[in-house]
């Protein structure tokens, strides 16, 4: 029986609680009365993954079985989520590879030989061969990659994009030409959190900048409350409009998967347990890790953390028409991650870990750290934010990892030029976005190297627009003061100092809520 999530109130018996901060973590003593939100423990996983996949493909929701949709001579395209999902990267074999294998098996049986497999990475960085191989598996990679039939989507390849029309709100819908002109587009997704999947998969994953900019902007993001709740998210509404338009042109067969909460494998699984239930062995592990991390140089810590592979198990898989499939998916995600929280608080505390969607095998630069905390964690709510309007967010991250010039070249310039000018998400768009988005050097790096698109740092900043709009102050505990100031935030050495600084905004004895994340949680604030 899975224990549900709950809200702990810190009292004198509460041990110090674990808080992630980049390439490390600390044990923090929270003031008494602090509410700590724990996610539910892992749901039971499906007993036989291959069987579950077969079942889903044979009995799709609101669609004919996959087998029935295939015929000889057809154009079949399989698209899949890129390495930004799940976090951390799954231990091999990746669930997407297992699904693709079965889809390919059916296609082979039905005599389909025009098959291409596309990584739906939108404006993310191209994956390396090794990364690609990890997701689709050795066998698929070997059979498709050398012939150029397995490749990264290129949102800047004008000759390979198809403009499918405009939505009733005047939004351009432009996606990968191969996908748009296929007889069947199978999308293989990993729905790690509630914002993933649905029409976002094809509508954004395979789209071009021209199309994406309609919903990835400060205005839309401020009105996405939250984007973990697609029915109240402007961004999702736009993606849904686009998705429906795409559905009129191409048959989409959506396969969505949901995962449990086993974020870390052994021995790091201790970090997922509730602190007062730590055994002696757990306590020894934590002590050992802390000692080790304290003396390890940053490069080594980076390697330690980034070599971690998750132990995710499959809690469910659904296939068929996009919208009904996604309904079921969201239900399962909620079941795994939703925690009821009574009312908002004055202060919200979040520990930003070493990894976010955009720094897999790379570094968590200050912009990504801000996006992780104020974009993802802050928005991880239903109904209303955990913190009241005008309240304070306290985040933990050293903000000291620097920029990876291979994967995030435009971030460096965004940090040095744009943020030095203004940190207002509404202002940076009109002033700088076009220039970064069309810069030939960034375009070159996006298309040929492993770099995020030039416009990507803007999206990070738009992600946090809602938080900036809502919050009265943002304080980074242990954050590099220079980096924090550049982003328009403040930094403190300890939680005590941070609360002292926050007192001018929320008074001397504020109500505090700490989101104990990871594992993933979704606060349902009543």
């Amino acid at each position: 029986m899975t224990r549900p999530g709950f809200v702990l109130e810190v009292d004198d018996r509460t041990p110090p609680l674990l808080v992630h901060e980049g390439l490390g973590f600390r044990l923090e003593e929270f003031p008494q009365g602090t509410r700590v939100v724990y996610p539910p423990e892992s749901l039971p996983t499906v007993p036989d993954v291959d069987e579950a996949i077969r079942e889903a493909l044979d009995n799709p929701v609101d669609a004919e079985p996959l087998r029935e949709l295939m015929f000889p001579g057809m154009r079949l395209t399989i698209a899949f989520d890129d390495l930004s999902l799940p976090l951390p990267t799954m231990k091999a074999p990746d669930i997407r590879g297992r699904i693709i294998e079965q889809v390919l098996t059916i296609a082979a049986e039905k005599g389909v030989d025009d098959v291409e497999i596309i990584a739906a990475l939108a404006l993310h960085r191209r994956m390396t061969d090794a990364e690609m191989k990890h997701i689709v598996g050795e066998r698929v990679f070997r059979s498709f990659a050398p012939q150029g039939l397995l490749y990264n989507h290129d949102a800047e390849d004008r000759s390979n994009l198809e403009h499918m029309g405009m939505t009733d709100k005047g939004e351009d819908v432009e996606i990968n030409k191969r996908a748009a002109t296929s007889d069947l587009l199978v999308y293989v997704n990993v729905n790690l959190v509630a914002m993933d999947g649905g029409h976002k998969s094809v509508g954004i994953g395979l789209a071009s900048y021209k199309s994406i900019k309609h919903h990835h902007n400060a205005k839309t993001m401020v009105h996405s409350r939250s984007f973990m709740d697609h029915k109240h998210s402007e961004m999702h509404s736009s993606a849904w409009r686009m998705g429906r338009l795409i559905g009129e042109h191409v048959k989409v067969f959506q396969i969505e998967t949901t995962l449990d909460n086993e974020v870390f494998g052994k021995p790091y699984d201790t970090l997922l347990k509730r602190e007062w239930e730590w055994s002696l062995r757990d306590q020894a592990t934590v002590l050992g890790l802390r000692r080790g991390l304290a003396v390890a140089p940053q490069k080594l810590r980076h390697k330690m953390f980034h070599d971690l592979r998750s132990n995710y198990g499959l809690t469910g898989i659904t296939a068929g028409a996009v919208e009904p499939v996604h309904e079921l998916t969201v239900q399962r995600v909620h079941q795994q991650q939703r925690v009821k929280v009574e009312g908002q608080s004055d202060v919200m505390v979040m520990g930003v870990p070493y990894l976010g969607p955009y720094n897999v095998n790379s570094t968590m630069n200050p912009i990504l750290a801000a996006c992780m905390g104020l974009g993802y964690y802050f928005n991880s709510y239903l109904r209303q934010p955990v913190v009241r309007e005008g309240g304070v967010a306290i985040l933990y991250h050293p903000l000291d990892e620097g920029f990876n010039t291979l994967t995030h070249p435009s971030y460096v310039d965004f940090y040095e030029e744009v943020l030095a000018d203004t940190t207002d998400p509404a202002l940076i768009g009109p002033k700088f976005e076009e220039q970064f988005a069309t810069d030939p050097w960034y375009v070159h790096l996006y298309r040929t190297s492993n770099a995020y698109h030039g416009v990507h740092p803007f999206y990070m900043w738009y992600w946090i627009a809602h938080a900036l709009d809502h919050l009265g102050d943002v304080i980074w505990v242990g954050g590099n003061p220079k980096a924090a100031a550049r982003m328009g935030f403040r930094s403190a050495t300890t939680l005590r100092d941070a609360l002292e600084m926050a007192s001018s905004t929320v008074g001397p004895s504020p109500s505090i809520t700490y989101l104990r994340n990871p594992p993933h949680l979704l606060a349902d604030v009543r």
Partner: protein
Amino acid sequence: MLLTGVTGFVGEALLHLLLTEVPGVRLSVLVRPKGSISGADRIAKLLAKPIFETVADAQVGVVEGDLSDPPPLPGDLDAVVHSAGDVSFDPPVDEGFTTNVVGVRELLRRIEETGRDIHYLHVSTAYVSGRRRGHIPEGPVEHAVDVDTELAWGLAQRAAAEERSRSVEVISRLRKQAEREHGRAGLITAAAATEEARKKWVKDELVRLGAERARSLGWTDCYTFTKALGERVVEAYAATGHRATIYRPAIIESAISRPHPGWIEGFKMAEPLILAYGRGELPLFPAAADTAIDIVPVDHVVASIVACLAHPPAHGEPAYFHLASGDRNPVTFGMLYENVRAYFSKEPFAAGDRGAARLPEWTFPGGASVERMMATGEKVHKIADTLLGLAPRSDRTRSWARALDRQGRRLKFLRRYLDLYKEYAQADLRFVDANTLALYRSLSPADQETFAFDTGVIDWHDYLYGIHVPSVTKPVRELDELRKLRKKPVPGRLPRIAAGSEGSTGAEAEKSRVAAFFDLDGTLMSSNVIETYLWLRLGELSGTRKAAEIARMAGKVPGYVWSDRAERSSLLRTVYKEYAGARLSELDAIVDEHLTAHILGRLAPDAVRRIREHRAAGHVTVLVTGAIRPLTRPLLPLFDHIEAADLAVDDRGFCTGHLASSPLVGESRGAFVREWSRRESISPADCFAYADSHSDLPLLAAVGHPVAVRPDVPLFRHAKRSHWPIADWGSPAHTTRTLDPVGRSAR
């Protein structure tokens, strides 16, 4: 009356005194044109100075000419005051003789030519007595030196030194040393340095010769020696029945009351020492506390000169006057030190970033012990400098270099002043001023007040503490104020990139084209040629052979380092030999497939931004590197032109281990920039260049806006000296430095 040397300190004061207090006198001045400024203009400029504001109607006749060959003098002269001369203590020997002997002789010849009874007043120095000790009378200096012999010798020395400087021994030693230091930057740079060193050698040799000859005959230095010989010329002139006065002041310092208290022009003898002390940079001095330093205020000097002029001596018997303070009212080094220290304790220099300077406490340990301390300091500095030359480049070595250079400058300053003043500081001389005092007493009380020159009544505390030191420090304080107002330069601030003038016509735009040249290794990314060789080489080898290759290369590294120190191109040739047998197309493929990510990840973000800024401004960007062309492939989109080393290939496409043309290093980079700019009709003066190593000096020197990027120590020093901006572009800290990126990426 004719004056010489009015543009000097004493001459100016004398001119001022005559114009204000001796109204009847008609003045002419002998002035040398300086550069394009005529003598008359120099005088006009002089008379425009604030102290001459009170002079209603200055009528000064100007005689243009040089003392070594003076023009005929005006025919109506009654007196000539000769106060021109170099006060440098260590002039090259020929210049000392020319100024102090030839100049006097020629002037006297012109005076004789006029045929009039002219009173010639010769301003000499009290220190012509040389290394004598104790009381010095107001009379001829006793010595038996033959003036003509010495003069002929002195004037011949320049030619002789020039000759010697070109001898094989000297020139080859200088060349070897220059090549050791500058060889990496190329032989032309080294040759320029050699010629520079030879000129310096000639000058040093002449200075040394003068000083040695002077000491061998009992004088302190070339200045006093030639001055003493100059007096002999005057005495010989007087002996032929002329009127002549030999006037010998001691150390002349600022005015006590006129033109105004503390008036001083330029820095004289004690000023650099006073200022250095106030900055806390003069920790010791070789004098004894009770040794007198014989100083006199400038207004006393000129007043006594006027008095001398009013009392011409008899024909054929030169008169001698000392203007000194040491005999009757001595000021000692101890007093000077106390007063200076008291003054700076009360009014320290404007505090810098680190607060006011700590004033050193002098212990007057004596000359020998000061000399020992200096010698030790210099030895340590030299050793540290040698070690620094061997240290690998890093931020730390650069900061060491900065500290060491500062230390070196201080040591040099100390050495120079200690050497110069050692003799004076240790000279226990007492200049008897009986004649001068008698002259003073013979004046009417009114004249005694107007032309005060009794040094016996000066209150040294009032003078030093109240007048002299404040006036000496005033310009420095003003300069400090100015410096404070000026915006602090941001370290690492690079020259601004001006965008190409838009809207200009085609021809104009063509004219204003600008290029930016970038070096690769060490500038755009931290790498070197051996490392990049291994990146490529290890990519093709299996596990065990990789280890063997690394071991083989490791064994060769000392040899490489050695040849790199000697000459860059030989290193490149040695390493590039290792490419023999590799297929060029394969090298390209390895780079494209595996190394692109590694190279892009290693690029310094600031460097990339700078390149892109240049492009945005419409500049042409050029990569100049000794690296082989395949390695530059990932950078193609950033540059309009890439000048890299091309490996020679045989007809099957395999590398021969040779280069298609000689590698672009050192001098050839400068030549490349010039030739390339000429072909592209770009003016190098408008161009930018970025490089990291001493061997890139010709590249940097070829353009108008050079920038040193994380430079090695020799380039760092050169950049500092030439005021080139220094940029700190580091590869991102998190990138892994690996010899085998291909292996890693394939994993």
